[in-house]
Every structure is written in structure tokens, then in C-alpha cells.
């Protein structure tokens, strides 16, 4: 199996008075391509910091990160932005759709930045919307969508350009059980259909249950790392 993400002795220390905060303490791990991994742990355990570092949104204090075969810790901001555009998709807890764009425009945003022609963009997004139950909502602005619908648009935005890796930070935290289950179904299907690697940070037992690998962090370190051999896409 190829490696999608690899970290070696990864540290993130926030300078703070009186004592610096060690959010991540020397984590070394590998995530395989096509895996569906959940990172769990209590608040402050370093889950989000790990995702941010892997996504190149924040730089580690020490250690190295590889996305595929590219080491990213020394990359320029411009190269990191390009890497995110080409290879990483983000799903956030608060959806974070751009309020000035419609659902369709939000979903096609990364394709737009990549210079994909309009017809091709629209085709891809509409197919995806159809697949994840967003048909008919293309022209709605985020304010006119429910939380579950917004999160599905966010997922569509993250996966539409076929990135190798999706980083999802507490994606179900603001959703009810039904919407959470639906969203996880969508993600699992995309994972299976496209082989996209998913890495979640989560508190949600439903996400942990559906993951194929569960990494538990405590105080910035890996406390346990267990592989789970099941998939549970709703019929």
C-alpha cells in the first residue's frame, strides 16, 4: 500500500507565557492511501493541530510531514497553497462555505481555481450533487441551506477535484444523528468509489465506529492506534 501521509517526530509548540503549550509532542505515524481514519481524543489532545499541520495550514515546530512523496514542512506558502489546491480537500466543523457564492459555486470553487473550463466544472459538480443528494439546491446560497445540506456542499467542495486526501475536522459536530449518518454514508461512498483517503478529527462515536482505523490522541501523543475491519455504509 502507498503512503498518503507520513509524519516523523512531529511537534507543535505554541509560545505562551508563562509556559509554552506543547499541542503535539513527537507524533510519528503513517496513513495509507485510500484509508478511512479517525483521530479521536479529548479537547486539547492535538487532533485539530495535527490536521492543520498535515494540511499545511500551520507549520510544525519540529519534525517532518510527507503528503505522498512530497515533504511539506520547508515548502513556501505559495507552494503549500498549490499543494492544498491539487491534493488536499478540507471539511470543517462549521461548514465554512463562502457566503457570497451559491451551493454550486462553492462546490466548484477549487475547480475554478485550477482553471477547469466551466462546462466540465458544472458537469462534475452536478454529478456529485446528484450522488450526495443535493440536486435542486445548486442555486441556493449557504444561508438558505440546512446544516446537513451545507456540510454536504462542503464535502462536495472538498472532493470534487479528486484530491488524494480529505482532512475533516469534526465534520459531524454540528449535525443531528440523521444528518451525521447521511454525511458519513456520502464520505464512505466517495472513499470506496474514488479511493480518496479520509482523515477525521472527531469526538463523535459514530465517526469512530465507521472508521477503519482509530488513532487516539491524549496530550499531544498517540495513546492508541487500532485498525478496525468493517465498513457500514447505509443501504
Amino acid at each position, binding site marked *: 500500500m502507498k503512503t498518503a501521509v507520513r509524519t516523523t517526530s512531529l511537534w507543535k509548540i505554541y509560545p505562551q507565557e508563562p509556559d509554552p503549550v506543547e499541542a503535539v509532542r513527537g507524533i510519528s505515524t503513517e496513513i495509507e492511501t485510500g484509508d478511512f481514519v479517525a483521530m479521536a481524543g479529548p479537547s486539547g489532545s492535538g487532533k485539530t*493541530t495535527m490536521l*492543520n499541520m498535515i*494540511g499545511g*495550514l*500551520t507549520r510544525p515546530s519540529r519534525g517532518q510531514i510527507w503528503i505522498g512523496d512530497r515533504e511539506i514542512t520547508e515548502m513556501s*506558502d*505559495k507552494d503549500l*497553497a*498549490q499543494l*492544498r*489546491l*491539487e491534493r488536499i480537500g*478540507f471539511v*470543517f466543523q*462549521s461548514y*465554512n*462555505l*463562502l*457566503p*457570497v*457564492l451559491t451551493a454550486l459555486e462553492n462546490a466548484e*470553487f*477549487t475547480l*475554478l*481555481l*485550477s*482553471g477547469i473550463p466551466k462546462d466540465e466544472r458544472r458537469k462534475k459538480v452536478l454529478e456529485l450533487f446528484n450522488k450526495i443528494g443535493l440536486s435542486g439546491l445548486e442555486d441556493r446560497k449557504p444561508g438558505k441551506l440546512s446544516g446537513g445540506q451545507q456540510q454536504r456542499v462542503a464535502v462536495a*467542495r472538498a472532493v470534487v477535484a479528486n484530491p488524494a486526501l480529505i482532512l475533516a*475536522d469534526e465534520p459531524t459536530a454540528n449535525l443531528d444523528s440523521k444528518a451525521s449518518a447521511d454525511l458519513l454514508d456520502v464520505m464512505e461512498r466517495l472513499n470506496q468509489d474514488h479511493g480518496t483517503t479520509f482523515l477525521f478529527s472527531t469526538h463523535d462515536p459514530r465517526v469512530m465506529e465507521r472508521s477503519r482505523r482509530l488513532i487516539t490522541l491524549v496530550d499531544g501523543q498517540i495513546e492508541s492506534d487500532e485498525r478496525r475491519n468493517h465498513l457500514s455504509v447505509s443501504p
Partner: protein
Amino acid sequence: MRLTVLLKLAMRSVGRNTRRSALTSLAMVLGLALLVFSRSLAEGAYDKMIDSGVRMGSGHIAIQAPEYLETGKLEHRLEAGVVRLASEVANDVLRESLLSWAPRLSVNGLASSTAAAVPVRIEGVDPELERAFSDIEDKLQDGRYLEAGDRLHAYIGTELAQRLDVQVGNRFVLTAQTSTGDVEGQLVRVAGIFQTGIPEVDQSLIHIPIDTAREWLHTPGATSTLAFLLNESELTDIGVETLQLKLENERQIRVLGWRESSPELAAAIRLDSTGNYIFHSILLAIIALAILNAVMISVLGRRREFGVLQAMGLTGVETGFVVFLEGLFLTVISGVAGISAGLLFTWGFFRDGLDFSIFMEDGIEFGGQFMEPIIIPHFSVEQLLISTFVVVTIGMISSLYPALRASKLDVAEAMKFEQ
């Protein structure tokens, strides 16, 4: 392609918070409209002052003896031959832009009646040419202005008439040092009495026929000043330069523009203009703060959004550019609206002039010149272009700091920010 995306994001963002954008735009529109209005009014007032000043004074362009401006003495006059040459050259050079011209022979003297003796400025004028040149005939209070064929007639101010205790038809004596060095008197009769509203003029200026003056002062064919009135005051400098070039070999001649021959008026306009620039600078600073405030609030309230943009693949510089474009759009849209509103308002309501007679019933003296209470706004294309350029520049500068803030965003921190 990415520029199109950035433009689209910026435009949509401006349109998104309509109330804030509208309020910011309104502040700018009002500020700019006021700027255009006050500027056009000031330009109109300056036009009026210059016109009034040059008509009462030495015209847009004056030809004199080199020392005359400093001394004002009869000995520094243009003799008949020089007058002929200068007037021919000037009429030829300025013919396209020449409105009218007038010769004047001036001398300081004393006006005496049985009641008083008053120091005066006597100007020998050609009644027909002077009538077309100056508007002093319009200030007539009693009697009439000088006419061709008049010999011993005088046109005097109201205050002088009061001090001499004379009326139309009464006689009084003018005394001055002639070109021979002797002090000689000339009896004249009051043909008309004028009132300009400027005390110095009303109590000391006397017009008499130039032929009478030449004979009395023993200066046949001479003048102190050849005054030329142009279609537009903007043509003064080029006219002066051309005449100076044509007459450069004539050492007895000095060509002056109205700023030199009427230094008081030029200084008053400069002073007023400086005050206006300060006022306009304050207005523009307020506009800049409005833009800075609007864009800055927008940036501070949208940190998470900018974080998302960067997470999606936009660089920091591109994110900052979106913010910069937002500020620029706001400025350009409001700028065009403000300048248009100012033009329409000024033209719509005041194209025939703004009447200040409630504040100055009989006009006002400014820079030694009388100004009518009705001011017609003047739109200067140059001023409008400068205003537009300044506004756009201000928009760009005001948007730079918020753009810089957005470009330097810590994305991970921004994602924690609650919108």
C-alpha cells in the same frame, strides 16, 4: 482565470453587506458631491474675481514701461511711437483671443473744490474703448459715463463726490505734476458718479478723456498702460510669453500678466485656494477613513472566510488582493456616483449662479476687487480628473492595510474565529 475568480469574489463581497456598503458609499458620495460643488463654486468665484479684477485693473495682459509697476509715476510712460508699435503687435498677436483693449494714461494728483482737496488717482481713458473694456459704466449712480468728444468731463466715485461736495454738472480742479516737472491744474466738470463698493476706488479714482490728460500733462500720444482683455484668463500666460518674444528688442516695454500687474488679486486667490485645498484635504481624509473603516471591519469580521479561501488553495497575496479589490470597487463606484451627484446637483440647481446676496447684499470686496453676490459655478475638467484620480488613489491606499492584514492571516487561527 484566477483573476476573474478574485474579481468575482470581491464584487460579490461588496454587494453582500448591502447596508454597510451603502452607508460607506453614501458617506463617500456626499463627501465627493460636496467636494465637486465647493470646488466648482470656488472656480466660479475665482473666474468672477479675475474678470472683475482685470476689467477694473490692467487687463489680462498689460504693456507698460519697465519701471511703471513699481513707481506708478508719469515719467515712466510709453511714448507715442512705442504705443503705436506695441498696440499694433499686441493686436496682431492676440487677435484670436482678444476681447478688447484700452490705453490709459495715469497720474497721481489732487482734486480740489471749494469744500475740500483730496488726493486722487487720475486715469485718462478712451471713452469708447474703455466702455467695452471695463464695467465701470455699470456702476453708474448718477449722470453718465464719458463719451467720445468729451473734453473737460470727469467720472468720479460717490465718496469722492461727497468729500468734494460736488454733483453732476459741478466743476472742480485737478492738479498734478506734468511731464515738464511743473504742477499744473485742469478744470473739469462732473459727467457722472459711480459706486463700485470698494472704498479706495470710490474715493480716489477719476476717469477723464485721455486726450485731455495728454494735453494737460504735455505727453502727446503717451500712455501709462496698454491693457488687453482676453476671451479666457487661461490664455494669459501664453499671450504674455508670445508678446514678450515679439517685443524682446523693445527695451522701453514690459509685458505683464494679470498676476504681476494685480499682485493683490493673485495673492488673494492663492490664499483662498490654499484654504480650499485644506478643506478638500480634510474631506478626502474623511473619505479615506470611511473606506478604511468599512474595509477593515469587513476584514476583521471575515477572518474565517479568508482562512477558508487559503485552505482551498488561494495564496495569502491573492486573499489580500481580494480585499484590496473590494476597497477599490467601493471607492470607484462611490467615487463615480459622488462626482456625478456633485455635478448634477451643482448644474441642476445652480447653473445660473448661486445668490449670496443674503450674506452680502451689495457684493463683496476681495483682493482689492469688487465681487458680485451671484457666483456661477465653473466646472473644470482638469479639477474633475484630479478629484477622480485622488479618490481612486485614496481608495487604493486605504485598502492596502486591510489587504495586508488579510494576506498575513494565520489560517489555523482564523479557522477558530467565530463569525
